[in-house]
């Protein structure tokens, strides 16, 4: 049973719009999926509403994903460098809704750990790979989640190089310098060439 459509608008979109008004910045339909773009500060309220409303019943927290839009050349749904996309599902209607918030470098997103305990891991992952901090789900200082504890930087940011760093070996010597390797692109900086930019040799 799909989610009811009232006057050409999905019930969940309609209810969120009525309840939150301008905090629902944009509603995007893309290839059959519905994205609710909301103000970052009101995220827990919106998700809590979607979860607790008996008619909507979005009780299944699928995941949350981070995206770094700093190299994006097209139109954006929300202003702000990073987007965090929450994937919720209602088993009453077997329908899915995506809630999007945007956040800039140095800002934080309120955690949803108190609503969905399962949010803890994916939020930690986004924090680890993008550097987006989730308020209420901060990592222990010095502890990384997926990366080794002494790792510096956030690899899924677009400016993070895909290769080209020195490899430190256990005996204290560094590996062969990148320049020394008889490879066609040795010594070439990979800076700024990740993502969808052209990388020579690929």
């Amino acid at each position, binding site marked *: 049973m799909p989610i009811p459509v009232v006057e050409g608008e999905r019930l969940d979109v309609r209810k969120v719009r009525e309840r939150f008004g301008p905090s629902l910045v944009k509603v995007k339909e*893309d*290839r*059959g*999926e519905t*994205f609710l773009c909301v103000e970052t500060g009101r995220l827990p309220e919106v998700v809590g509403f979607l979860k607790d409303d008996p008619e909507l019943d979005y*009780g*299944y*927290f*699928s*995941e949350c*994903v981070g*995206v*770094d839009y700093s*190299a*994006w*050349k*097209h139109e954006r749904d929300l202003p702000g460098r990073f987007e965090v*996309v929450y*994937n919720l599902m209602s*088993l009453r209607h*077997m329908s*899915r809704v*995506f809630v999007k918030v945007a956040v800039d470098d140095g800002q934080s997103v309120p955690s949803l750990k108190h*609503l*969905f*305990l*399962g*949010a*803890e*891991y*994916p939020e930690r*992952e986004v924090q680890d*790979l993008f550097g987006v901090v989730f308020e209420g789900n901060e990592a*222990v200082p*010095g*502890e*990384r*989640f*997926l*990366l*080794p*504890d*002494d*790792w510096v930087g956030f*690899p*899924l940011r677009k400016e*993070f190089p*895909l290769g080209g760093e020195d490899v430190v070996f*256990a*005996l*204290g010597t560094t590996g062969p310098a990148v320049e020394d390797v008889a490879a066609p692109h040795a010594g070439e900086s990979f800076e700024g060439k*990740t*993502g*969808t930019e052209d*990388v020579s040799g*690929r």
Partner: protein
Amino acid sequence: MDVHSPFMPTTETVFQKTGENTMIVNMGPQHPSTHGVLRVICELEGETIVRAKCVIGYLHTGMEKEAESQTYQKCVVMTDRMDYLNANGNNLAHALAVEKLLGVEVPRRGAYLRVILTELSRVASHCVWLGTHALDLGAMTPFFYIMQEREEVLDMFEMFSGVRMMPSWIVPGGLRGDIPEGFEVKLRAFLADFPTKLQVVEDLLVENPIWKERTQDVGVLTGKEALELGCSGPIARASGVAWDLRKSNPYSCYEEFDFEIPVGEVGDVYDRFLVRIAEMKESCRILQQAIDGLPEGPWNTTDKKVAPPERHELDNSMEAVIHHFKLWTEGYRPPVGEAYAGIEGSKGELGFYVVSDGSNRPYRWHERPSSFMNLKTLEVLAPGRLIADLIAIIGSVDIVLGEIDR
């Protein structure tokens, strides 16, 4: 010499004792029952777990980062290496997400072949789970019997792809090829044989008093808790949630098959065991229907911008040569946008979220890993149980570290 290894245990810094009479015990990452490189730090009071914390990332290889510099076709091979026990399922989820971006439809024969491959993968994955889960709890015999059956499935994978574990056979736009000669005979023989072999293993465990003692009322999870934890698949179903994406949001022609959703009542380790056994039988039913009703016709999409032309077309069509060249040098460029496709993998909801910026490489490429989300249950279920029960719970959650760490 100051040798610093990032893999030195830092138990003290991340996990402090909370009680007077407790001790901290580190389990893994080389513990055999953690099925890979999972590390669990437990705070124990006697033999009872007070608190448990999973430490992951030992297998993190940055696949999502790497995908951003690869064309969509090259990303396919990385999906197998995530959940390596259910490689076809990962291929399918990825293919569906990219097809959604492209707006491409796969013909019915292609969809049926995909169903056959993913259901075989599910059976193989559950076979490994059953064998290792029983082995963890001291029952060694089932492992040998059930791994023999898994070999049969892997032989079939080898028949069509030449690879036993990482076929990469399901690609956006269809499949890499049709099933080979002799596959159907082999599959029919397997389907005739497998239920009796499974029954042998099942009989060893279902009424086994030691097995029941170890698994019943251990690690009980309610349906609501499971969903809030992001648990899906057999774990949620064992807790009474009759939800299967193959039924609720059918993809790849699953609406044409007749099968049941096995559901548990208690939500303990034993129920998860029963649900997975029943799922294997349902998979066999689906496989039987799929091979009986396998439609004739093309298995790849007709969109030649996505699927490569057949070999004989290259001899007499310049257009086919151009398509072939463009496809293998440049790939395809999905329109700008984002898409998510979720399937019912062997361990739960398995999805891919792909953002395209209109180029031939994904702007963001992310897997929704089922084991990763299911792993959190371990920290919830362990407190208050004996350390031996933790082994039972890990086995029943059925984790694959390749998928958790990616």
